[in-house]
């Protein structure tokens, strides 16, 4: 029998090639998993999102373009050492971006995003950087600013931007928010979930246009908690309402032309049942939409 052995390697994100820093170059979309949820302020589980996303996005017989993508494996993290954790995440993000690649971080929770944002800042000297965050929550607390908790993450990112919250767009907020955080959010570009129902509406286009005008390099952070709980379990209790996957994809479609260099997908607590892949499959689709935004940004 002379049939070539039909062997498929152990799964990677979207069946993309496996590689390391040497395989990255300008135009590559570098992907890595984030195994850290210790500072989510809620239930653990986001640490396993990368694993489940690899399962859900590989071996499905779906042909996605992956020739410009590299799965770097998971990032080094120190789950019980907040300072060391932030330092090593920043260092890795900086080294990835220094190759000229754009970077997609998958899994974990939003508490690690400030460290990755610091990597973008370090890799973008002299550039105007900004954040687009799509989430049910604002995470603008400054009560525990000294801690790595997720609810201070937007505050800690804004503190790294010379223009502060004016280079930040907060999209998709819903449910009860702290009055103080809500007041601070008015300094940012802001579109609550109700205003995302119409992707051609004014709020979203104003946010997009202003970010295009004021930012040379953008960090796009999407939290699975923006989706309804039929799709994804969340670390912090929610009322179960949220966007459909289709709505979120439509919102992401509007961000295609922005100079996004880093994207992350946080807050997904996967169903660990082996066949229970529905939620991770849906989140993987969102992850690939982020990869396409990064791809468009390199053109």
């Amino acid at each position, binding site marked *: 029998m002379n049939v070539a052995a039909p062997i*498929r390697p*152990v799964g990677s994100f979207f069946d993309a090639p496996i590689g390391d820093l040497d395989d990255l170059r300008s135009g590559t979309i570098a992907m890595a998993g984030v195994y850290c949820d210790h500072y989510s302020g809620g239930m653990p589980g986001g640490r396993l999102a*990368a*694993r489940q996303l690899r399962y859900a996005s590989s071996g499905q017989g779906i042909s996605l373009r992956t020739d410009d993508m590299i799965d770097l494996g998971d*990032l080094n993290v120190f789950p019980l050492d907040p300072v060391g954790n932030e330092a*090593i995440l920043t260092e890795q993000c900086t080294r990835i971006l220094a190759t000229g690649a754009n970077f997609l971080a998958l899994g974990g929770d939003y508490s690690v995003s400030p460290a990755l944002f610091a990597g973008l800042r370090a890799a973008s000297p002299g550039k105007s950087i900004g954040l687009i965050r799509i989430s049910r929550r604002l995470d603008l607390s400054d009560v525990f600013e000294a801690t790595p908790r997720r609810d201070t993450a937007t505050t800690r990112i804004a503190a790294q931007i010379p223009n502060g919250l004016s280079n930040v767009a907060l999209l998709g907020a819903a449910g009860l928010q702290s009055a103080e955080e809500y007041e601070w959010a008015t300094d940012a570009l802001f579109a609550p979930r109700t205003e995302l129902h119409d992707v051609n509406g004014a709020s979203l286009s104003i946010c997009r246009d202003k970010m295009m005008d004021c930012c040379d390099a953008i960090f796009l952070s999407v939290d699975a908690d923006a989706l309804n709980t039929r799709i994804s379990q969340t670390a912090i209790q929610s009322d179960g309402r949220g966007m459909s996957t289709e709505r979120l994809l439509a919102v992401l479609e509007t961000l295609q032309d922005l100079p996004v260099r880093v994207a992350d997908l946080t807050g997904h607590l996967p169903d660990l049942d082996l066949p229970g892949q529905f939620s991770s499959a849906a989140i993987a689709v969102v992850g690939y939409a982020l990869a396409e935004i990064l791809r468009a940004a390199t053109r």
Partner: protein
Amino acid sequence: MSALRTAPLPRMAGDLTFMRAKRATLDDLRADSLAVIGIPFERDTIAASGCRFGPRALRETSVYFGWHVNAQFSHPVDIDARKQISTSSIHDRLVDLGDVAIAGHLPPAANTMIQSAIGEIHACGASTIILGGDDSIVAPAATACEGSLGLLQFGGTLPSVDKEDAPLGQLLASKRLRPSNAVVVAPAQNPDTNFADEFENAGGRLLTARKFRRLPAAKLTGLARNLGNSVDTLLLHFDISVFSAALHGMTQTPRFGGLTIRDMQPALTAIGQAPVAGLIVTGLNPTKNGLSVVKTGQRLIVTALLGYIYGRLGLLSSLQREDI
């Protein structure tokens, strides 16, 4: 190579290859490689759906034992036998090829794919650990091997005289396997009397769990070695049903009075020292109702496989034991 990671990863993070083995392709294989390959296939997707998730479940569990890539756990010792393993060579020789891309294929095509993949691996001279899948993968995998065949079967089903549905029956009926080159240990059901008589009269050996427990390890190694030396290819079929179902419950063929891990791990260590060309794991259904989160079946199998891998790679050495 410029490496992204400069520190160890958390134990459950990272690349989910078997025991954190290196990824490899057929081109990377050497004669002394121990190549892991998954066959996520099941024949009966109605009554016994779930075995196709076996390779994934086994890899996921095996990550716990990826000691050779953990600098802080560099020389594991068997607490009872006081046997130490040198982990340094594991990383060179144990490799993970991935899975046969079999999803969606029906048996005739699936069998061809299995034969093609296993045949190419064995053509490289490497020995294999095949992660199933249900037992329908055994016959095509065995058919792919060159020359005369020997089979050591642990657990699993037995044929009746007029039925060939069990893998052993298929191999005997096709003359691919001679009864005198087959040993069956602790099958999952009592043998059909006619089959047992015919099989044993033709030189086959049937060992009940009780008989098997009385075999000393040296005799077991000798039995496997003699069988291995008298055939061109010796295969080991390890079905989860060899274990007492009370230990895991994660099989479609539950049985009572089977073996325990205390029987199986030393047995596989002993057999691993014989020239075994391939070990085929079958029967794990990690999605069996209510047991998806329990994971005892995959842990049992991987714990037993550790003994086989250490034995196969010749890694065991003795330490002195303090008397108590």
